[in-house]
């Protein structure tokens, strides 16, 4: 209810001590001196007070590092399958051996199941497979062009037959950890690409709608209203099912991003339009008009800077929905298709409830989905609060 009156900024007065966004004037001077901080500085001060938002940002940086260097974080070919190694349980890393730091896992030995005669792998406590960080393994192109063969972790002196399954294997005997690294790459980037497309659509259509108003506004608003009242998943399913089966992984990837953003732009358009409309009424825009600023100057110099932070917040908050959409579609088998790897594709295996019950690690890909969605939400909330503390 009681809110401190806003400081009147006097741009020419010299900056004094600045601490956590609270502006202190030096001594009991008659003239009030006020520190000048840019809008972005103020936002940053407010943002860093938001613990969850900082945590979310940290997690996202980590996720995107994994996406960028998936080859490094994975230690084996994600598509290398071996039916005999189907559904091996995650191996536990033992960090110390004989009192010193020497990580190892128990080796797996093949055995026949006495009942089913199937060949199964069980850990053999007597045999140790030593691990090392930055071990050499599968060769790859670091960042796409630097040949390298080092991985975050790997089996020491990579002997044939010794293998590592940190998160176990899937039905086809592929290493879940390595697959998860590549899936992170796909799913995290699909969020970015798709949100970029939605942003373009949303900013253009929302901006046009808000700035020109009238008939154009009415038409765009009706389209948005109609799109929003249609259940999205059936629509996505329909569109995704229309993708030709012979398309390559890359083609499908882009088709899916387009499909998701075609429907996802409405929320961003709503935010942009709302901002445009409320800013048009602001005194400073009126003032700019009165001193004879050109339309484009008013838009880009006066209006856009004052709502760009809101757009950044709305964009950040739109990404989790996109990630969930991609995951859902791929889970249904209508999104990305194998050999593409994404979180949704990985979760397809979990549809088989019998397999899931004996090998719960198939549910592991849910963890990055939930963590990424949470992180985006926290960061987005933080940006929104920092951009407009009184909203």
């Amino acid at each position: 209810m009681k809110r401190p009156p806003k400081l009147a900024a006097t741009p020419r007065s010299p900056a004094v001590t600045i601490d956590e966004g609270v502006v202190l004037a030096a001594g009991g001077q008659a003239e009030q001196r006020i520190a000048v901080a840019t809008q972005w500085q103020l936002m940053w001060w407010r943002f860093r007070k938001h613990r969850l938002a900082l945590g979310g940002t940290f997690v996202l940086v980590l996720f995107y590092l994994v996406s960028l260097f998936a080859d490094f974080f994975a230690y084996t070919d994600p598509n290398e399958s071996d039916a005999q190694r189907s559904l091996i349980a995650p191996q536990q890393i033992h960090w110390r051996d004989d009192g010193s730091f020497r990580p190892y896992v128990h080796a797996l030995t093949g055995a026949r199941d006495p009942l089913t005669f199937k060949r199964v792998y069980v850990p053999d406590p007597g045999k140790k497979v030593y691990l090392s960080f930055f071990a050499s393994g599968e060769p790859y192109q670091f960042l796409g062009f630097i040949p390298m063969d080092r991985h975050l972790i790997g089996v020491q002196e990579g002997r044939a037959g010794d293998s590592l399954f940190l998160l176990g294997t899937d039905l086809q005997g592929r290493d879940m950890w390595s697959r998860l690294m590549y899936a992170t790459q796909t799913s995290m980037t699909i969020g970015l690409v798709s949100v970029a497309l939605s942003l373009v659509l949303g900013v253009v259509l929302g901006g046009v709608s808000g700035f020109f108003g009238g008939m154009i506004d009415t038409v765009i608003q009706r389209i948005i209203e109609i799109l929003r009242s249609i259940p999205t998943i059936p629509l996505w399913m329909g569109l995704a099912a229309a993708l030709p089966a012979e398309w390559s992984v890359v083609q499908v990837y882009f088709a899916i991003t387009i499909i998701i953003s075609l429907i996802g732009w409405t929320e961003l358009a709503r935010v942009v339009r709302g901002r445009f409309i409320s800013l048009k009424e602001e005194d400073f825009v009126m003032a700019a008009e009165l001193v004879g600023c050109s339309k484009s100057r008013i838009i880009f110099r006066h209006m856009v800077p004052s709502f760009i932070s809101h757009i950044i917040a709305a964009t950040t908050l739109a990404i989790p929905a996109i990630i969930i959409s991609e995951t859902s579609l791929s889970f249904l088998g209508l999104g990305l298709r194998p050999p593409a790897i994404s979180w949704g594709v990985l979760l397809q295996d979990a549809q088989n409830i019998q397999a899931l019950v004996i090998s719960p690690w198939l549910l592991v890909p849910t963890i990055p989905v939930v963590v990424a969605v949470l992180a985006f939400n926290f960061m987005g909330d933080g940006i929104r609060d920092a951009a407009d503390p009184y909203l």
Partner: protein
Amino acid sequence: MVAYIVRRLLLAVLTVWAISVLSFAIIHLPPGDYVTSYIASMSASGSAVSEGEAIAMREQLGLDQPITIQYAKWMGLMLQGNFGMAMEWGRPVSDVIGDRMSLTVVISVAAIIFTWAVALPIGIYSAVYRYSILDYAFTFIGFIGLAIPGFMLALIVMYIGFAYFGANVGGLFSPDYAEAPWSWARVWDLTLHLPIPAIVLGISGTAQLIRIMRSNLLDELRKPYVMTARARGLPEYRVILKYPVRVALNPFVSTIGYLLPYVVSGSIIVSLVLSLPTVGPLLLKALIAQDMFLAGTIVLLLGVLTVVGTFISDLLLMWVDPRIRLGQQ
């Protein structure tokens, strides 16, 4: 008031039309048609379909005509309530969909009731006792609820049911009643099976509604009429329940309009995991088989369902908000 209803009704009709065009177009987007995929599946199983047979099939199904005529024909049939044949099943679409559609409605409504029943009191509590421990707890749970897509929650519930209770928590009926004709016993059986899918489906909507209710109420709590009510000497709980909560309820009611598409949407995919006999699994099958009449009808009916629901929520909003009823926007 009349103008408001007419406007909403017009928008509803327009939306239904847009949905019909979209659903029809979607089915026609993939190259080839039902006959192509039929031929493919037949040859996969070893029996070939001759060119002549294919042409005869197309003619019989009306697939050889221009797309606008096909659309007009389809719409004509739709309006008469004749949804055509589900080709793969060899039965009328209405037969195949029938019960599944009503079960979709039942589950969606159950999920929305759950959402409301939980979100309303928690939202009020969180706004009134802002920054209390429970508020933080609810906010945290809400965030988690928001972050777990329905189908993942369904997977986890299925896993827990199987692994720890040895029970299949999926489905809407016990095996005894799955194929039985409708009876009170079957309805009771359905009621017993309803909570798990309703909760799974409703949880992320609940998380959103809690946030909406909380922020709406926080806005209202700051308004002067709350202070005037207090200044009249009304006890605090009555001040809050009678005034700001009542006012914040209006935008809350209108969220049905947006909750419904969301819930219906989610029901499709959750049904697949929990093997619920709704239209979800059917739609997926129809899309994969390119069974246009069936898939088109399902998408259209789901769309119509949400439009009707949204229209009802518009009427409800008019009923609770005198500003709309009296033509003040």
